């Protein structure tokens, strides 16, 4: 059974039916938003059952769309949090990606701006490495991007999509060592992205991010995870009641290869490790529980099949 990320959008009336259906089919709901009279569910469902969900949600005027960014955590690396770089274009993209299911975090290096002076410290590097993918929002000048790229990518081992002012070919030419994806024509600008052409650019970034993530998914599929992150989320939700008291919008953030649990590491690492998944297999058997560099959160890194010889 392959689970695929989808977004369900429909009216609030009888939406419990859909939630029950998804759970009965063996799917998982990653996020649920209630916006006025509308419900948006970001979930993983079995590929062969999408049609069934579509049929059942038809009388409820619900629509099901595939959204490959559900269940991913993206770091949008903005060169600074000053008005020069925010809110456009970094926040524009972060917000856009959120709408289609991704969980985006803004990461900004303390010494991001500048050509000669920009650098990444160990904390920033580690925070970026906790994500599935990093999107670097660079500026407008070729020479600056070329110069600062080696310093900004040092130690970052997640895939990187670079967006910058010069066109795609130029970016490809100047960026060395190469990045995983490039989007040209999105440098620094100081106006909101609202024209069709500008929205098109955001779509282009999403497309590029999706392409890079697909590659990562294929690579994961070759040596699958011992347990699906969405399933782990469900188990933690059942067995660690404290998670229900967390006020953060996503107390459990699903990633492609793990999970961010927004509970203090010192108190909750042991209880999380001891969670019984199935027939005496504990979470610690299938995953590493490590402290996150983001606040005092917990990161659960799921091990591969080749490391555990178990898939549940």
């Amino acid at each position, binding site marked *: 059974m392959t689970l695929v990320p989808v977004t369900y959008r429909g009216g609030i009336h009888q939406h419990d039916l859909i939630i029950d259906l998804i759970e009965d089919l063996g799917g998982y709901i990653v996020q649920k938003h209630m916006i006025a009279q509308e419900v948006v569910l970001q979930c993983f469902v079995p590929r062969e059952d999408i049609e069934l969900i579509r049929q059942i949600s038809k009388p409820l005027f619900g629509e099901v769309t595939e959204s490959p960014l559900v269940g991913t955590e993206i770091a949008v690396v903005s*060169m*600074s949090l*000053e*008005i*020069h*770089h925010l809110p456009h274009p970094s926040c524009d993209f972060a917000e856009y990606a959120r709408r289609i299911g991704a969980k985006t975090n803004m990461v900004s290096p303390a010494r991001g*701006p*500048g*050509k*000669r*002076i*920009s650098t990444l410290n160990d904390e920033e590097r580690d925070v970026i490495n906790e994500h599935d993918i990093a999107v670097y929002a660079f*500026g*407008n*000048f*070729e*020479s*600056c991007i070329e110069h600062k790229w080696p310093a900004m990518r040092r130690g970052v081992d997640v895939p990187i999509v670079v967006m910058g*002012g*010069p*066109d795609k070919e*130029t970016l490809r030419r100047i960026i060395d060592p190469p990045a995983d994806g490039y989007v040209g024509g999105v*440098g*620094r*600008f*100081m*106006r909101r992205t609202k024209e069709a052409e500008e929205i098109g650019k955001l779509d282009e970034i999403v497309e590029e991010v999706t392409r890079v993530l697909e590659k990562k998914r294929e690579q994961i599929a070759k040596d699958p995870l011992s347990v699906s992150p969405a399933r782990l989320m469900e188990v933690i939700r059942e067995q660690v009641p404290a998670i229900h008291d967390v006020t953060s919008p996503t107390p459990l953030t699903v990633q492609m290869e793990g999970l961010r649990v927004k509970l203090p590491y010192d108190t909750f690492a042991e209880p999380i490790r001891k969670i019984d998944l199935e027939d005496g297999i504990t979470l610690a058997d299938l995953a590493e529980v490590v402290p996150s560099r983001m606040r005092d959160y917990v990161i659960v890194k799921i091990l591969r099949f080749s490391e555990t010889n178990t898939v549940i």
Partner: protein
Amino acid sequence: MFAIEYFEVECPEPAGGAYYNQITNDVLLDHNLLKVIHKIHVYIDPEIPIFVAVGILNKVTSLVRIGDFTNVNPQEGKITLVLASETYLAPMLKILWEKYGNDHVEQPDRFTVILYNVKADSKEIEDIVVADPSESLGKDLIYALRLVAPEGFRVRREIHDKGKFTFVASEDTLTEDVDELVRKKFALMGETP
């Protein structure tokens, strides 16, 4: 309305220059500075790196007087000022208190100020100057140019004097030939610094 007579962004990287043209325009528009600037020339070279913005301002707009934003109604024993906008309320009150004393100035609500037993006619009150917009203009302009300049350019020199402004920024220490560069950029607009 695009009142700028000369607006040029010069950059060795054509694509980068086009983006900075847009940024300069957006920032000046957002800060309501387009109608204040008469000429502006921006030069950016990321290789050196240096950012230069030079220009000329329009003749400064007139002073703001009480009559510009209030309706002065003289009545027996008192003068009622009805405000159309609150923008200059605070400086106006300060001036009135100083001139006539706190006892003679009363503000019953946001848009009304009443002067009791003051020896002045309405014309005199209307002519009191409360603010000089050109004072904050220099600050606003330099602030806007800081937004236009690339953020890493933190070594700056800002001059705003006699209707002309010069803004130079770089990531490295500014070299001595900056003055020469500024002079050249002014010359492109047919002006001298």
